[in-house]
């Protein structure tokens, strides 16, 4: 595995290996503290994403490696008009592995075709963000002990939400997965995702109200309804409040359901839910660093 552009670039076998390795790292992080001594990770962030960049950098530092890079296009040669291809070719001279984020879709595909070293897509516009999906899968596996036989609820902006589309696609590869898609009509999953669900013979339903479906879920994946997705403020305010998870809705959920969220949240999960043991989103954020450690090790072929 030399390049990771889309979560589906990984076989389920490779995902199992990454999850198993991440579990081992989480059990005993100090045993991995020198696995990448002398190795350099370049984090090339053509658009800012502090959370994702710090997670990658923390992962490499925790493995004993070093990091270099830039955190926005302003502070990079891209501001002077250098192409993605030229930037990554130059950086390859200094680094053993590259993690890159870019506002344009397909940018990582361009970069991957230009370099020999391992390259991880850390987000290319609204297109792919494989380490988020890996984080989600690790979290589900740790919380539920399995990736099959689950009823997965996804709630919020299912139309534009990249993390949701990737997670649906990733979960479709496991046995006996049922999907419950909760969104306003205006923000339902795009046709190509629905076509895949229909053609794949999946059990799925689309509902408008979270309280109607929350009781059947093993997992509830909440997403933010972004203000800029709406044409007007009125629609935003009307729809935003229909999809807020609070303590009252949690009383309708199974006792072993887990709540996930890619973070940052705005108000789609009230803070009163945070103390509920079923709230897994902060544990999920913690998984992000460990899954990136496992991924970096795999891609650098470090044992």
């Amino acid at each position, binding site marked *: 595995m030399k390049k990771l552009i889309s979560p589906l670039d990984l076989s389920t076998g490779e995902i199992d290996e990454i999850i198993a390795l991440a579990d081992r790292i989480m059990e005993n992080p100090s045993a991995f503290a020198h696995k990448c001594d002398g190795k350099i990770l370049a984090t090339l962030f053509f658009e800012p994403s502090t959370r994702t960049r710090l997670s990658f950098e923390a992962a490499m530092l925790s493995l004993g490696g070093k990091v270099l890079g830039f955190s926005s296009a302003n502070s990079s040669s891209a501001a002077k008009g250098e192409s993605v*291809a030229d930037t990554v070719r130059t950086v390859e001279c200094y680094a053993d592995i590259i993690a890159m984020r870019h506002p344009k879709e397909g940018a990582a595909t*361009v970069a991957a075709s230009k370099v020999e070293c391992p390259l991880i897509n850390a987000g290319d516009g609204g*297109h792919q963000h494989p380490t988020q999906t890996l984080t989600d899968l690790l979290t589900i596996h740790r919380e539920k002990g399995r990736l099959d036989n689950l009823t997965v609820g996804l709630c919020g902006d299912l139309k534009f939400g990249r993390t949701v589309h990737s997670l649906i696609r990733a979960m479709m590869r496991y046995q006996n997965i049922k999907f419950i898609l909760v969104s306003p009509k205006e923000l339902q999953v795009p046709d190509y995702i629905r076509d895949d669900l229909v053609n794949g013979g999946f059990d799925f339903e689309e509902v408008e109200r979270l309280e109607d479906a929350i009781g059947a879920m093993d997992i509830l994946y909440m997403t933010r309804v972004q203000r800029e997705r709406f044409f007007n403020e009125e629609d935003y305010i009307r729809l935003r409040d229909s999809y807020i998870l609070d303590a009252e809705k949690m009383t309708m959920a199974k006792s072993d359901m887990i709540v996930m969220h890619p973070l940052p949240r705005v108000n789609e999960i009230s803070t009163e839910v945070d103390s509920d043991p079923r709230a897994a989103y902060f544990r999920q954020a913690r998984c992000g660093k460990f899954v990136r450690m496992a991924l970096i090790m795999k891609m650098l072929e470090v044992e």
Partner: protein
Amino acid sequence: MLNIDSLEKGLVIDHIQAGKSMEIYRVLELDKLDCSVAIIKNARSKKTERKDIIKIEDRIDIDLDVLGFIDPHITVNIIDGGQIIEKKQMKLPERVTNVVKCKNPRCITSVEQELDQVFCLTNPEKAQYRCLYCEQEYARK
């Protein structure tokens, strides 16, 4: 009606959907050839109601892969010595490069102009192509 027999050597691009011949003329850059090219529009056909035909004299070395992308129903007759020496049925190519542009304004190709415009066949039944980079579907008119 113009007759295929009049060609001694060349290509006959047949069963073009009526009205599409100019698009093919443009994509194959036939304007850059110095041999004679005949475009027959709205010819009568048994297969379809109306069709277009393009005849190219003297040249048989034109890259025709792209024709399958435009319309896989096109057939190409290769003529030599006044005879049809080969009849080719076009099919959907696996990928086409620099034939059509990605229309996704968020695609990397929209800012990095030197990149090739590459589309890959992702669903042969629907003749569906997606951009190699952003994976946006190419919408046919």
